[in-house]
């Protein structure tokens, strides 16, 4: 097992350096002078220009610049935002809980509905339930989620008036964000209605962000279940006279879960990509919206740092999934 983890880590490192190289290159391959581009219509004085050249290190050889950049990255120094002047690292981790909270809820939503849907479809293979569930899953899988979000806003917020349109909590409530997770903070604040307000703000973004993972999980669960259900030991279990619920729910589902867990782990990247759209539409103050805003503000140090942090995060999750998978399924380790 230790050897397996080590070998995984060894493939992690070159990818990590590659990712730093790409984010390093980002500012430097911008067409034109990066400082002038970033300053945009704001303009920049000759003095400030010189200052920025030194600050970004553009006056030194590329290899030295990269060395400095890498050294900074390893120490958690990603430079400062061009607009707010605050460290990119601090901004990222101030906003990250919002994205984490939303992604976590979306994942729970996707698993809670996707797993049963996949199991029911597999058990009723070829029958009405199977067809209905899988058609719905394919529609979810093909969904342009930015449009789905707008539709839900029209119907649920507009016509029915059930949920708010944007933000994380109603402006009526104010409390310190000790954890950064609105659900926990609103509970701890003890203010009446704060928690309900936080939940109602979460519902639509959760559904929108969870839709594609939900469809993927349902499809994956179904095919994994079908594969397991044709195994001999399932026939044995049935022959022993176990109840169908026990055979399907315990014997089959347990083994079908292995590929499903992988899919869940690998959809973190999808989730973050989806967060870009979801957060933009619902004005959710997380890293997805932050990245889009920074791109439009030409705040390139932020884009550069955010790109790196997001990629590293996805890589760490993938690595953990790999290790977990090797732990659950020893056959994988041998390869």
């Amino acid at each position: 097992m230790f050897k397996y983890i080590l070998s995984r880590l060894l493939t992690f490192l070159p990818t990590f350096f590659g990712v730093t190289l790409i984010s390093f290159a980002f500012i430097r391959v911008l067409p034109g002078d990066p400082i002038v581009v970033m300053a945009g219509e704001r303009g920049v004085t000759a003095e400030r220009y010189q200052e920025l050249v030194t600050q970004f290190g553009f006056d030194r050889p590329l290899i030295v610049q990269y060395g400095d950049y890498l050294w900074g990255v390893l120490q958690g120094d990603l430079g400062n935002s061009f607009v707010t002047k605050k460290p990119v690292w601090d901004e990222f981790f101030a906003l990250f809980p919002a994205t984490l909270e939303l992604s976590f809820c979306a994942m729970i939503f996707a698993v809670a509905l996707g797993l049963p849907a996949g199991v029911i479809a597999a058990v009723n293979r070829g029958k009405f339930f199977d067809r209905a569930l899988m058609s719905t899953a394919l529609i979810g899988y093909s969904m342009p989620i930015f449009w789905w979000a707008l539709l839900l806003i029209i119907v649920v917020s507009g016509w029915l008036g059930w949920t708010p349109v944007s933000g994380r909590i109603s402006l009526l409530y104010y409390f310190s964000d000790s954890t950064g997770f609105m659900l926990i903070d609103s509970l701890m604040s003890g203010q009446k209605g704060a928690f309900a307000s936080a939940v109602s703000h979460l519902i639509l973004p959760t559904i929108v962000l969870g839709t594609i993972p939900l469809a993927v999980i349902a499809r994956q669960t179904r095919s994994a279940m079908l594969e397991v259900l044709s195994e001999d030991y399932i026939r044995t279990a049935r022959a022993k006279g176990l109840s169908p619920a026990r055979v399907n729910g315990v014997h089959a589902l347990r083994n079908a879960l292995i590929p499903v867990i992988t899919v869940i782990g690998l959809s973190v990247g999808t989730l973050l990509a989806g967060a870009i759209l979801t957060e933009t539409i619902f004005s959710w103050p997380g890293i997805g919206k932050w990245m889009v805003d920074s791109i439009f503000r030409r705040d390139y140090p932020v884009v550069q740092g955010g790109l790196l942090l997001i990629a590293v995060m996805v890589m760490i999750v993938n690595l953990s999934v790999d290790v977990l998978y090797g732990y659950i399924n020893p056959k994988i380790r041998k390869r």
Partner: protein
Amino acid sequence: MTEAAHIEPVAELRPGRLREFWHYFRENRGAVMGLWVFAGFVLVAILADLIAPYDPTQQFRGHLLQPPFWQTGGSLAFPLGTDAVGRDLLSRLLHGARYSFYVGIVVVVISASGGILLGLVAGFAPKWLDTLIMRVMDIILAFPSLLLALVLVAILGPSLTNAMIAIALVLQPHYVRLTRASVMSERTKDYVTAAKVTGAKLPRLMFITVLPNCLSPIIVQGALSFSTAILDAAALGFLGMGAQPPTPEWGTMLAEAREFILRAWWVVTFPGLAILVTVLAINLMGDGLRDAFDPKLKRS
């Protein structure tokens, strides 16, 4: 002589294979439906100029935000209503098919040809080159695809062409991985050894002996990335980083319609519905293709 002996069995097999494929594909009703819808979509894309009632950018100042014909205030002159500056929604949707089709084709061609080439090279190359190529692909895959595409477009400047380039680049590693994996499993088979023994050179081995036998997963991937390309291009357009207004691209249309969502449901509903139906049809087809290419696999 050796060459003729080499090609003959392939030529003999082709028609039978195609018929077999169609036999299995036809069994999947969803896939056939998807194929019909897709054919309709292609037809609309080709004939947009002829069938659209108006020019997609022509503004009818007297008919701003007019609802579809079945609602009060609507008229058959503008069957699906008009947008905020009085452009006919139906005409814009029909022309939008053209952009989506164009995006799909261009992205699939660029990403597939680049990916297949790199995958073949990685599969046949010495270990160091293989490792190098695959590591670079890992690096690209480490970024969430939409984010990387977004950043690439930010560098290149927002336009439909740049969006297509960015999406193609982001989708291409999947082809590399697929091709390489198939090449790896085909390479050790007897027919490849036989071709080698008869003196086939490396390019021949790569493109003529091995590649045709690796094509089925790649074709399925082609269908899937066609729909991903349409979705991502629309998402970029929606974020203002794809096609620029007044281009009647579906995602861009949605972005323009956003501020009217509570006043005029049709300007938001129809472009998104067009994206959904097109993508759904292609995905249905993709599922059918996958099953048809692999009839032995658990048919689902």
